[in-house]
């Protein structure tokens, strides 16, 4: 879970928010104030699938699982394919 969390934080800050003066922390609400937009979420999900080695079905892409990096890592970093 920690590995997934650290990789996600690195990807979000290094790639998704690269052009912006924003640094996300593990508990930053990713979907408040337009931090993550439509193209970025697709990249985030693709990266999450790469890191976890499993396909993420649309049904699991809900706020409960995507509130911030901690909740993403908790849900997807511990669940087996």
């Amino acid at each position: 879970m920690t590995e997934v969390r650290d990789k996600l934080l690195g990807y979000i800050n290094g790639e998704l928010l690269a052009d912006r003066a924003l640094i996300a922390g593990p508990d930053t609400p990713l979907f408040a104030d337009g931090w993550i937009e439509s193209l970025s979420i697709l990249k985030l999900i693709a990266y999450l699938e790469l890191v976890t080695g499993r396909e993420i079905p649309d049904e699991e892409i809900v706020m409960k699982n995507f509130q911030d990096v901690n909740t993403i890592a908790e849900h997807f970093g511990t669940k087996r394919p």
Partner: protein
Amino acid sequence: MSEAIATPETGFDNGMAELSRLQEWIPVGPEVQLGSRMMALINWLDSKFVAFATETGAREMSVPHCIERSVLEQAGYFDSFPGEGVVDENRGGYLSPATCYHCYAKLAAASLPEPGIWTCISRCGRNEGKEELGRLRKFMMREIVLVGAADWVRQQRRKGMDRILAFAKSLQLRVTLQTASDPFFAGGAARGMMLLQQIKQLKYELRAPVDAPGTEMAIASFNLHEMFFSRRFGFVVNNGVPTHSGCIAFGLERWALALAMQLGPERAFKLSGEEHK
């Protein structure tokens, strides 16, 4: 989705067969001809939605019959719904796919001194390429449009959901309120928009079972647009506070159909003849 609220269960009454026998719902291709009692029910329902809107401070806005293609382009309609066709009225314009597009066009470049609520009604048109009960090519949509700061718009939408859920319950109409996303075609940025809608709970639908258990029809939707339309049409509130919008939409034929099918036509038609208690 996770947030489903159900009103008490009522029975089906073979409503469609009865509606056909009474000649109150006559399918003509992808459109429908309504009998006078269905029309009366629709008008009664609309009067209830207007009353709800004005109770919340809405002003009525008159909108034109047709909408220009340029307005739909400005609204991003063709990017957001690449698979849907618009309905050409051969009068130099289209039937709008949703009533609220007219409203944003009227608010273009406006500087609003305070948050605002408007309500308007129009005949809408969509070529969705699907054949389902209640999915009409041309239909009437009443909308309530909300413009203000993010928290205010979200609160107004919540109030609207509570009020309309209570109204459905008072009619003994069985419904569920569910998070939803628009049926974008999969792939590309459109899928991203759909997933964002899903995560951020931007869209709720009030769905009513019709015809048979497991068959549902969306009769209302409660939508947050964030700053999508205020940016595209350039309207601001309170001297430029980040301006959000939202809308509450009612498909009038679908409400009447759901009532007739769940309660039985005769019981549904009585609603428009005597004030519901």
